[in-house]
């Protein structure tokens, strides 16, 4: 062999390679077989689970439908007892209970009035809140969030404290569900989490809260507090409430926000002032005008067009005709025309031949036509 070192090297290597190849092939065959078996087992288990779920859904749909059309809590109890006669053990297992919870919650979403109340009664009678609370303890965000949603949908105000704890949760979904849930369960009072929440409250959430609120519950003191918080989204939401519910008592706090560092808050403050403006509003608007952004200036001019009219405002509008911005000049002239046609007629006469105003005046004429 020493005569052929190269051959030895090749053959030796080849022998090692064959063994290695065989081992590798065996290993991969085992892995593939394992994976196939696992897939088969998984598919089989999943299939059985789906089959069981479909069977349960058929059973539960009868119970839920019967419950929905009941006319009293006693009738709900009767329907439940009737169901339990043949299915007494079914509701001792966690899986069927989970399926039932989902069905009840889903169905309630399509119903209102006493039918929806009946489903809450059924939820209470079967103590399904216990299962939901177990899910609430889950480490998985989607289980936790859905548990919160279910508790709110089923009006489980008795678990408010547990839900409230999640209103400042780091996970967006859990926090959002918890915040909406507390408002759903306790209305305006539920919004107290805004006092401490330090994460942004999205536009969608803000609208969701508003849709849950009743005007009669509103407390201006609380809204006033929110206006002073560092969380911009809370300030914005408070301004939304002021706009919608016309909280005239907070006029001065709102005008102070015209100088806020956040553009969104300044714009929302202007929107609020459109609704709650009084005789002092235009003074604030005029003061604020030079420092305002272009968008804010245009809104301010629209507001002045509706509420202004004093000599001071007319003079101010006249000075704006010297602005480089055509849109500002146009809005100023438009406001003047609305507030004092005589004043604007004089102004227009003066600038009729000025090239900067040719386009604006033609626009105004078109509008008048």
């Amino acid at each position: 062999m020493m005569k052929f070192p190269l051959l030895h090297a090749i053959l030796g290597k080849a022998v090692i390679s064959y063994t290695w190849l065989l081992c590798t092939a065996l290993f991969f065959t085992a892995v593939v077989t394992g994976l196939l078996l696992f897939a088969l087992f998984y598919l089989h288990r999943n299939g059985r689970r789906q089959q069981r779920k479909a069977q349960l859904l058929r059973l539960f749909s009868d119970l839920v439908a019967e419950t929905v059309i009941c006319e009293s809590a006693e009738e709900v109890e009767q329907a439940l007892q009737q169901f339990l006669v043949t299915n007494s053990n079914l509701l001792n297992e966690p899986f069927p209970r989970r399926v039932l919870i989902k069905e009840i919650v889903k169905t309630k979403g399509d119903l209102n009035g006493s039918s929806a109340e009946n489903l809450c009664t059924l939820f209470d009678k079967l103590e399904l809140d216990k299962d939901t609370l177990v899910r609430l303890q889950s480490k998985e965000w989607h289980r936790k969030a859905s548990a919160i949603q279910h508790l709110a949908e089923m009006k489980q105000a008795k678990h408010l404290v547990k839900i409230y704890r999640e209103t400042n949760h780091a996970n967006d979904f859990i926090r959002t569900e918890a915040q909406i849930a507390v408002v759903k369960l306790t209305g305006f009072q539920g919004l107290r989490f805004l006092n401490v929440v330090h994460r942004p409250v999205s536009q969608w959430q803000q609208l969701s809260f508003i849709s849950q609120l009743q005007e009669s519950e509103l407390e201006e003191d609380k809204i006033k507090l929110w206006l002073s918080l560092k969380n911009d989204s809370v300030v914005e939401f408070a301004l939304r409430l002021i706009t919608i519910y016309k909280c005239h008592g907070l006029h001065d706090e709102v005008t102070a926000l015209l100088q806020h560092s956040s553009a969104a808050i300044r714009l929302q403050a202007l929107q609020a002032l459109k609704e709650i403006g009084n005789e002092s509003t235009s003074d604030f608007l005029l003061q604020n005008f030079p420092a305002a952004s272009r968008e804010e200036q245009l809104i301010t001019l629209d507001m002045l067009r509706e509420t202004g009219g004093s000599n001071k405002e007319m003079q101010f509008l006249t000075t704006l005709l010297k602005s480089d911005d055509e849109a500002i000049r146009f809005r100023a002239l438009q406001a003047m025309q609305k507030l004092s046609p005589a004043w604007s007629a004089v102004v227009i006469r003066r600038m009729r031949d000025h090239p900067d105003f040719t386009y604006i005046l033609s626009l105004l004429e078109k509008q008048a036509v």
Partner: protein
Amino acid sequence: MKILIAEDEPIMQKTIALRLKKDGHDVIATDNGREALDLIATQSPDLIITDIMMPYASGLEIVGSVKQSQNQVPIIVLSAMGQENVVLEAFNLGADDFIAKPFSPAELSMRVKRLMAR
């Protein structure tokens, strides 16, 4: 009175059926639009309650098809809240009434009575 319910959500279908049976009506139900059209042709219901979102043929297609065939059977359309365009389209096609989800089965029952009386 024979009422056809076209609703693909099993619980909702059962709920409406139970409610109407309780009111003394005969109920036929289906979970898809195509079968609903067949049932309308073969069973001649006195009233149709149809959901908008249905497999094979939507509630709008059912309304359109029924009204196009000069069939005067009243139709109540069920739809999710906020589907204004769909509701307008349904009325445009000839639907007689509309109920937005979430709804109350008791209210539906009243509307059925009112339509039947008409």
